[in-house]
């Protein structure tokens, strides 16, 4: 088998891609385990406007429901796909369940008046305040 054989190349690509995906998954799990990725507020509501910064927000039931349904549907999809050897279709009822759960989360967020906060823009450095130089004007005429 030469290195230009398409079958050899496809196998090589499959091995390399699999290793990369598994390494990424391992890196994420390791970061979660070592708290580099902080999951402490995974189920917490967004803090209320004007709340003190050290106040721990309460847990959100809609977030918990989304978490449970995600694990159940993803786990079931994985099991059934591995069992049948193909990617299987997701029926409309299952999509409705996920949609109801996600819709409740979004509605709850709207009602709470909380929107996803965009990342804070870096502050622009201000020039040091000093005595203003007198403008030099060129006499004309």
């Amino acid at each position, binding site marked *: 088998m030469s290195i230009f054989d398409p079958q050899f190349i496809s*196998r090589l690509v*499959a*091995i390399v891609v*699999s290793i990369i*995906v*598994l390494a990424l*998954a*391992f890196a*994420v*799990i390791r970061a*979660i*385990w070592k708290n580099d990725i902080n*999951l*402490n*507020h*995974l*189920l*917490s509501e967004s803090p209320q406007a004007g709340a003190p910064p050290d106040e*721990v927000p*309460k*847990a*959100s*039931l*809609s977030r*918990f*429901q989304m*978490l*449970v*349904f995600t*694990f*159940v549907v*993803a*786990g*079931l*999809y*994985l*099991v*059934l796909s*591995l*069992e*049948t050897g193909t990617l*299987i*279709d*997701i*029926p409309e*009822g*299952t999509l*409705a*369940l996920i949609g*109801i*759960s996600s*819709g*409740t989360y979004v*509605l*709850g967020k709207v*009602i*709470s008046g909380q929107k996803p906060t965009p990342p804070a823009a870096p502050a622009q450095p201000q020039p040091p305040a000093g005595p203003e130089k007198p403008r030099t004007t060129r006499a004309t005429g």
Partner: protein
Amino acid sequence: MAGFSFAATIALVAMLSAFAFVTLLKMLDGSISMSGMLATGKDQPNDPERVLMLIGTIAGAFAYFSYGLKSIATGGTFPPVPQEAVMALGGSNFLYIFGKIFRPRK
């Protein structure tokens, strides 16, 4: 190639299980806070609509997962969700939203 495919599948399942396991472990040891989940605000009593939604979520998810595992023997497709179950879950979520709107938060 079949051996590599099998090994990669096992590794992927192990990684996904590890992710679920780490999340569950952090919920059990209290790192992921679950306090106040059943109340509108902190130091308020539990709300019945939230208890109903929690029971519906856990019971529905468990029933659907076990029903799906049984469907492996009958072709390995996602089991259909009964219309009544979707309506029940939608109703409980509607009550949750209704309570969130009209229940005063202290």
